[in-house]
């Protein structure tokens, strides 16, 4: 075992390659595709919801306007 450990202690220390730092910075700034996808879907849903609500409110206004345009006699119960 002494030989084994002597051989192991002969392993030299080496210097880390220079490119690792750039890779770390790039990876740290990277926004994952799943986050981008979630953001896009959220924006899409919000726009769809707003359009739906807008359309609904427009329809309500239309039906209210059509009652106003009826002749006034039609509103009275005969």
């Amino acid at each position: 075992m002494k030989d084994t450990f002597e051989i192991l202690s002969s392993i030299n220390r080496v210097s880390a390659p220079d490119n690792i730092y750039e890779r770390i910075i790039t990876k740290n700034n990277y926004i994952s595709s799943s986050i981008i996808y979630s953001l896009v879907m959220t924006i899409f849903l919000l726009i769809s919801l707003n359009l739906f609500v807008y359309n609904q409110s427009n329809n309500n206004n239309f039906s209210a306007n059509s009652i106003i345009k009826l002749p006034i006699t039609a509103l009275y119960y005969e």
Partner: protein
Amino acid sequence: MDFKAFYFKYKDLVYNVALNYSANIEDAQEITQDVFLTLLKKIDHFRSESKMETWIYKITINKSLDYLRFKKRKKRKFLFNNLSIERASNNDLINFNHPGVQLESKEKINEIYKCINKLPDSYKTVIILLKIENRTYKEVSSIMGLSVKAIESLFNRAKNTLEIFLKKENEY
């Protein structure tokens, strides 16, 4: 905190520990990258109860062991799907690529590493820290969170187990 200065101060420590676990340049680079990304997130939470170096050692060791486990699972899956056993054992030699190893000792050290890789994590760690990183018992006890006596006992058990594995390896 100036991350660039921090990185250049500790990059060799992290890289060498990663290399001593993985014995492979590409894997060591991946591990080093992961370690520094973790350090970047956690550095503000570092409490100076222990030394910075001890803390970095702990993170590097955990990341190295996680990476080795992940690689083992991946290899097992690949073996199950594709590879023959003969090619799998040859893979060990192909993957051994430690730049700190001299050419004349490469085969012998590869053999030792095959046996070290079979050891449980705590045995592997104590051997790497004491005999390759050349840390003192006191430093290893801080890193592993055990008493000096416990480290001595752990090292003895690790040494005996490694001896058994090496004997079996030489018999083949």
